[in-house]
């Protein structure tokens, strides 16, 4: 369902906005071609890399995974409870059900949601190694461009907790080189923190400054970059620390970093 709305200005240039219809009625397979199949049920067969789709008229159709953009199935009932347990810090209570959700929903999107929650549970328990293994699975299952900044950050946190520094550094540098700009900016910040923790303050400053100066388009990371770069510049008694703080206050007044930046 599409809604073409706009082309108001008399000039030739125009943009088109369409509203996506969010309501869900049945399981759906959305093909890369844009075609949509509604289904009674959908299963994923990892060995064949295909979806087994039972259509509304009870015909079972195999669909190769490579042709599928995404599938939509109802949220597993146990997921909300597990999510609540993770949020409440009841990690042990969450771990078992999340494992089950993953097993039951392989290839159906919710497995990855569960993986992320499971990773968070292990992070909460400071079990870096298990968290790393879960996030590695996640990263193998999800195309790199679809991995969110938060998940990538949690994976790096897991590597840090597991003290897998060489792997962390390699991954950060790979992302800095090849990742999307938001991902690269995040990786730079992480690497900066790693350098700072190792006492390599100048290297840390370079990463924070680089993010603040040349990744201004990555807005979510800017407050942190400005704040941390200003902190390091302060240590060098560089007056530009104040300029960065001013920018932080002006451009991101609602960020917690702006609120903490006051005294410098």
């Amino acid at each position, binding site marked *: 369902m599409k809604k073409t709305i706009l082309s108001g200005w008399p000039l030739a240039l*125009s943009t088109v906005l369409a509203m996506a219809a969010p309501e869900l009625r049945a399981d759906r397979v959305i093909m890369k071609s844009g075609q949509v199949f509604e289904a009674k049920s959908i299963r994923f067969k990892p060995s064949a890399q295909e979806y087994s789709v039972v259509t509304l008229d009870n015909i079972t159709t195999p669909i190769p995974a490579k042709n599928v953009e995404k599938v939509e199935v109802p949220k597993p009932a146990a997921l909300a409870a597990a999510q609540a347990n993770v949020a409440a810090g009841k990690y042990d209570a969450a771990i078992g059900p999340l494992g089950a959700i993953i097993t039951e929903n392989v290839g159906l999107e919710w497995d990855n949601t569960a993986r992320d929650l499971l990773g968070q549970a292990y992070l909460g328990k400071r079990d870096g190694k298990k968290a790393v293994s879960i996030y590695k699975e996640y990263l193998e299952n999800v195309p790199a461009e679809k991995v969110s900044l938060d998940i990538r950050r949690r994976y790096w946190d897991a590597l840090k907790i597991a003290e897998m520094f060489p792997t962390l550094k390699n991954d950060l540098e790979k992302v800095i080189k090849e990742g999307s700009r938001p991902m690269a900016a995040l990786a730079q910040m992480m690497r900066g923190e790693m350098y700072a923790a190792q006492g390599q303050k100048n290297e840390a400053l370079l990463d924070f400054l680089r993010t603040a100066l*040349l990744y201004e388009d990555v807005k979510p990371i800017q407050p942190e970059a400005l704040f941390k770069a200003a902190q390091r510049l302060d240590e060098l008694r560089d007056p530009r620390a104040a300029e960065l703080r001013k920018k932080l206050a002006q451009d991101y007044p609602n960020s917690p970093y702006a609120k903490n930046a006051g005294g410098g």
Partner: protein
Amino acid sequence: MRRAGSIWVVGVATVLLFIGALPGRAQSEDALQRELNFCSALVKWRFSDYATRLVDNLEKNNPSEKGRLARVRVEILTSQGKADEARALIKTFPPDSTATYGMLLALGDSLYGMGKLNEAKAVYRGFFANFEKGPPPEIAKFYQESAYKYSQMMAMTGNDKEALLAYEFVLLSKPEPDVERRLQIEMAELCLKVGRQESGKVRDDYFARAKKLCELVQWKGLDLWFGQSVVILAHIEQLKGNRKGAMDTITTYLPMLKELDDALKAENYPLKLSPMAQCRYILGTLYEDEARALIVEEKKDEAVKAFGQALNHLYNVFVKYPDSTWAPDAGARAERMATDLKDMGFKVKLPEINLAPVIEAQLKEARLLFSQQDFKAACAKYLTVLNVFPEQPGSVQSLGELGQCYLNLQDKLFMRVVVQELSDRYGARANFRDDAGTALVRLARAAEEINDNESLAFLNQLFFEKFSDHKQVPSMLYQSGERQLEKENYDLAVSYYSQVAQDYTNASVYLASLNRLSLCYTKRGDWSNAVDVLTRYTAELPFGPQLASARFRLADANRQVDRLIPAINEYFKLIKGLTEEEAKYASTPDEKAANRKLLEQAMFWKAYCYSRLREPADKVSSHQAQAAEDYAAFLKMFPKSELSPSALSSRGVLLLILNRNAEAAECYDRLSREFPQSEQARNAVFARGTSLLEMGQKDQAAKVFEEMFASPGKFGAPQFYQAGRVMLEQNENGIAIRAFEQALRGKPEKALEEALRYYLGMAYSANGDTRNVIRHLEALKALNASSGFTVEAGFLLSKAYATMGKQETAEEPRLKMFNSAIRVMNQASRLMTKPEERARRDFELAGIQILKGDPESAIASHQRLVLLSDYGNAKVRPVIEQAFEAVMPLLLERDMNQDLMDNATLYLQQFPNGRLMVQARQWREKAQQKMAMAGAAPVAP
């Protein structure tokens, strides 16, 4: 109806008119005014004393111009903190003259410049108070300019309300209508600014005043000020929270703005001047705000419409006004909005835009600023563009230019940030990699142009490390080698040339690098490597003068390492080539002359090599005979050569050895006949002895020198001195000492005695006779405390005392000796002006500390050298390397593993081809092992 073009003409005319009306405009200057301007500049540069003298002189020559001169005097007095004196001076002039007012306001300006804002204000206010109803026509222009200047002064210091008042004064002077409109717009902007900071009725009053001013402007025509008034009116509504009102304001005026826009286009004026860009930008932001508010209210349909409008306006600014101030922000905002919309679940289809012209338009200004060397402003512009259009074609070049801006501003931190982005991010992507490397090369060149060697070295190293496959690597390596060669840093030069020689054999600089590499080895006395490189070089070179020269150098290098047969072979090939195939090696007369010189030398040295051949033993005589023949051939071909006396002398000796005494006598006859002034002829015995020594006939040489000792009366002190020097060079220290002592008995003149004492010290030192070292070098010191030998003698003497001290067992004399060692070093130290001498002093001092049994102090002395010396100084580098060599075992013994590792790493960085390379790696490994075993923190991942 006016033509579109005419509207614009009015606008431009207005701008020009007003510029003309600005205070401080260029006046037609007479010679006196130029001098006075110079005086004012001197005051600004804080040379008020010079300015006073200049004004005094000017007054002598221009007695009738006291008023104009007094204005500068006021500036001088104020700058000296004598404002009261300045006021007193002003009072000596008629109160109502323009000149007096000029002086008064000059006082005000000076006070303002010194930050005395209130005093400056009082002066200006006092001036305006004289004309409550406006100035009389005769000073109206001066008044208007002063009032405008005052308004700018106040606005710049944030005194906006006072600035507004100053504008009122300007208006009192009844400016021309077009100037008046510009002033009204500026006032409206100020009212907006002041109103924004106020609240309630005060705020409303300011906004009302701004609105009134805008209306006045709008009544009087359609031009740029008109466009600006629309922007101000929209802002007022926006600040009042009336989004709809702001949108309506702009929409209402859009047809007129369009007319203005068309006029600009018709006259081919840059569209960045059009107020349309700003108005549509504002409209876009207003629609966006509205859309976001509608989303919160869950009115999705309406929100979509508003988002659509917002995107349309912003994209239009971005594309249609690419060089306007608003374009980058509009583009960035639109992109951000699109991303947010996608995240909210909307499908957004954006128009496909060719960004190249937009980026180009934005970069134009940055590049203009860059070319004008306004690097700070250029930085800001580049950053804006790079952040709005990252990772686009052309981004790399911009990033490189941004790096150059920081380099020129000497902001090395920010330059490194840019360089890191270039190398880490852009350098890792196939489509940008080549350009990123080129940008680094340009940056390095810019560093070279401003002689920023530190940055140059950093950038080059980074380039070589990260862009080893870049097409410019060989030439950059070669250039780096050239720079080090020029500074005589041969080891570093070698490291660059070697890389070309090893890895870039197809590069255009490959042969040149081989040539330079061999030169560096030669300069370092590393003949063995020189031979290897020259062998490659000669094998690759085509026929020509370079091949002749290279072959000669190869032969010479072989001779230097006593590889006499290969040397002879190369000399032979060269001689053959230059005699039998001359045309292949030279085409011009100059080349032929140079080759002739090479031939001369090659023939001489080939004979010399034969004379030195000692193996196989049964062939020595035949080699000597061959040498005699070769010398003869040389003498035949080059009878007047500078080398002929030496050839005659050597041939004579050879013939004597071969028992061909009659021929030998002929040689000596010819030597004394044709070269009577030569060293060899004048000192025949000495020359014979020296030749024998050079031929390795030490016993026979000793016999010859015995002839000198047997009849010392026949030889003067200088001859014994010379004999001693040769002996010393050949490590025949005993004979050298006899020769020097004999020379000393001949009561030589002071200069020779100094030299004799020094070399005696050196010879005795080589023989381990410290007492005699001390005897002669103390005598040298007594003879001349600051001779050319003092520094070197100081090192020897100091070491001799320290050695004596070490041998002493009793504490008191031991201490006395070490104190003498330090005292002597300190005395010599006063004459050490060169860094290499001071470095050596520290090194020798460490040696004394070792002898004294104080290795901790020795470590400290060595570490000072290692950590604090100038690695860029070619003469200091060998001493630093010695210090490394000496200190590393000491650190290892004491388990100072972190220092050991740091030093080894430093050595490997600074001496990439150093002679201790292998050892340095071993030291580092040992340190790592020891640290690991001791459970030290692991090296950073």
